[in-house]
């Protein structure tokens, strides 16, 4: 990892922070494009693992950026085999990228909240809120699509079925998300997918 790359990554995540209307799930497609397709800093499988593992832990979804930082740092230093140096770089990148993606939007919230409270019914603010909804929906659906493709590169119909069943269960029932993840894990392990 060169300093130039380190700086580029952090600046990019600072920019993403301000583009993250709709939260962490809405920037998943951009992180995929940037980290996997363009920079080749992560494999498809590492990307899908980062998002997946972040879903089984509690806490805000944005923590998935810390998992990505961890994976990028660990891999660029040679993986677990490289020992303490790689683990150290992983933790350093996890903290750095999380700060980069959280601080700009937090500063904006801190300083904008009074202004927004006064103007929340203004035509411009309402137009912005309404206008962003279709975009956020499209981005979340692309996040799900990319995650499905990354976890299922061979397009196995059984994995597609698990994905579809989970989607329907979330929409139609109140089943806890952890049960769905556990179900996916058990079915995946039993069938050797």
């Amino acid at each position: 990892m060169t300093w130039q790359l380190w700086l580029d990554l952090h600046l990019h995540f600072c920019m993403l922070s301000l583009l993250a209307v709709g939260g962490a799930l809405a920037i998943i497609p951009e992180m995929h494009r940037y980290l996997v397709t363009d920079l080749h800093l992560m494999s498809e499988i590492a990307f899908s693992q980062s998002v997946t593992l972040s879903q089984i832990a509690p806490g805000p979804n944005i923590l998935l950026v810390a998992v990505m930082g961890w994976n990028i740092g660990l891999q660029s230093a040679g993986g677990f085999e490289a020992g303490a140096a790689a683990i150290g770089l992983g933790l350093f990148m996890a903290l750095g990228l999380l700060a980069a993606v959280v601080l700009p939007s937090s500063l904006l919230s801190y300083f904008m909240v009074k202004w927004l409270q006064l103007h929340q019914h203004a035509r411009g603010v309402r137009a912005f809120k309404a206008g962003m909804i279709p975009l956020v929906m499209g981005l979340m659906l692309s996040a799900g699509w990319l995650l499905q493709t990354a976890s299922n590169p061979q397009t196995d119909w059984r994995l597609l079925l698990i994905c579809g069943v989970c989607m329907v269960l979330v929409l139609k029932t109140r089943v806890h998300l952890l049960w769905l993840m556990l179900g996916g894990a058990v079915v995946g392990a039993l069938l050797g997918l």
Partner: protein
Amino acid sequence: MTSLPRSRTDLFWSFSWLGLQGFGGVLAVVQRELVDRKKWMTLSEFAEEWALAQTLPGPNVVNLSVMFGGKHFGPSGAFAALSGLLFFPGLLMLAIVFTFQAFAHLPVVASALHGMGVAAAGMVLAAGWRFMPTLQQHPIGFPLALGFAALSFALAALVHWPLAHVIALVGSLSCGLAWWRLVPKDAA
């Protein structure tokens, strides 16, 4: 009757506890903790703050913690609430990732991760699909709103456009059209 957070430490631990309970959707947890248990805000105050947090970029619950901590104790309060929300959940998450990766070379763990990955994908797809009723009542009309959603899906998932370009194109069209349709009430 509402009460107030006692200190920055109080904020830190309260938001830590809140973060550790939030699986998937945090909205219900935030409401239960801040409104029902702590009584730090009324339900209508919460609804308003949540709407503000959603309008601004960044994760809603992160924005809410910054706004709430800042309101009571200024910048250091905002930092206390934010770091509480992220610190212990972050540590727990890294521990989970560490454990899984140590065993990821085993075929059975790899298979389980594939199964969990597509399950998570289904959950994310469902989160996106939940906007459908909102689109049906959208000020620019359902067909156009659906068209913009489909366009941003195609640009982000299929053509792999950078997010800044997608927002610049689809966001400006969609917000511009919403601006035009949201005629001021006195003029209508």
